[in-house]
């Protein structure tokens, strides 16, 4: 059986997010709020030398994401790489880093937190970059980021 020419079609202009751990591509789309904003190509389960469990790819046509935006997916895809494509070639490339603060994405797992009991907005600050832990701005508990604590879409700031 011959190799397919393209596993995921190349895009002319936009953003390619590579090295997302399988199967988190759909979560990345949700966190970035990309549900209904033009053409998205999503690939899940590619072989990857860097990610033993496989990698996902998200291609966003005609939209350049900013570093601040892409940093918010660091919580679930810390090894992701971002390529900004212009006229079919890579105009910019960066790896993401954990944001110092995150609003609206992480849910505090403490059931007695004001974010869960009194309607306070979700707000976290980075506690430990190595372990990917964040401190809740309300109950002040430290949380290790788990995928099931991520919800909603990104609000920067």
């Amino acid at each position: 059986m011959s190799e397919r020419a393209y596993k995921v079609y190349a895009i002319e202009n936009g953003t390619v997010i590579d090295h997302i751990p399988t199967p988190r591509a759909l979560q990345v789309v949700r966190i970035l709020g990309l549900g209904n904003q033009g053409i998205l190509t999503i690939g899940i389960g590619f072989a990857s030398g860097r990610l033993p469990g496989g990698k996902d790819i998200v291609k966003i046509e005609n939209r350049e994401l900013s570093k601040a935006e892409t940093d918010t997916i660091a919580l679930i895809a810390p090894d992701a790489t971002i390529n900004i494509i212009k006229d079919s070639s890579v105009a910019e490339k960066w790896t993401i880093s954990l944001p110092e603060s995150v609003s609206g994405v992480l849910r505090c797992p403490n059931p007695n937190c004001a974010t869960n009991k009194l309607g306070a907005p979700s707000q976290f600050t980075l506690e430990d970059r190595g372990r990917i832990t964040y401190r809740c701005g309300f109950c002040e508990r430290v949380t290790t980021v788990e995928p099931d604590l991520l919800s909603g879409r990104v609000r920067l700031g």
Partner: protein
Amino acid sequence: MFPAPAGWREMVEMNDFRGRDIVSLRDMDSEDLLRIVRTTGEVKAGKYGNFLEGMAVACLFFEPSTRTRLSFESAVLQKGGRVFGFANPKGSSQSKGESFVDTVRTVEGYCRAMVIRHPVEGAARLASRTVSVPVVNAGDGANQHPTQTFLDLYTMYERFGRLEGLRVGMMGDLKYGRTVHSLTHAMAMFGSEMTFISPPSLRMPEQIKEELSAAGISFHEAEEPEQAADRNLDVLYVTRIQRERFGDPQEYESVAHSYRVTPDTVLSLGGEVSIMHPLPRVDEIAEEVDALENAIYFEQAHNGIPTRQALLGLVTGGLQ
């Protein structure tokens, strides 16, 4: 006016407390804590008169806490201010279904400062982000109770004339005790040598110990107070071990017995150690200890008044 002590005028001009929310120790540094402690000493010495005169302070207690509430109310009244509010949520519009945010937003218009006690962690922070008057956290669930820590610090400062480098033992329920967690945080800012004495099941949480290690603060752990005999403790801070933390009543009885401070315990720690306790105590300090000079826990409780007066004076601008 009372004559200002040397250096006081400069301190007042540096006052950055006016309008400030007092929600968590995490918002403060050692300079802030020293400022509060020194001001408390001046207030206790009677330097400032009725600096809360004409001010209305709201005390919103969304869960009952008689001691803390009475202490805040007495503090305000004794400095000429007035207090209003409620002692439990049944007395508030929350019982009619009003949201917490709406309650504080309404009360904001009635007061110069707002004292809030709430069972939900982060409630005071939420209030502080909602209203423009200063918010003082009087306890938010298991999270913070900063004025308890301030009065603890003041009590040590009063006893030793300093906070730097004190050797502090903490004993009892170190796992769940909000008071000892905050005190640990504060003492770490002053380079304290800490000794944590608890049964294995109630040890200081790993996260706090990791924070201490990361900050280069050394600490020791022990399972019996006598094991701290060679630590030359300045202070032994005792907290209650709660019965409900143990599934087996017999285990509780055996643990509670070995964490009882008696005159013999005081002697085994060198005889000079000051015994503190946030109160109320049950039987973790024998009544015979009360008569010793080492016992400063009632003085500690009384220090809640000047501490809260100083704090409210600073955040309202009454102390200017």
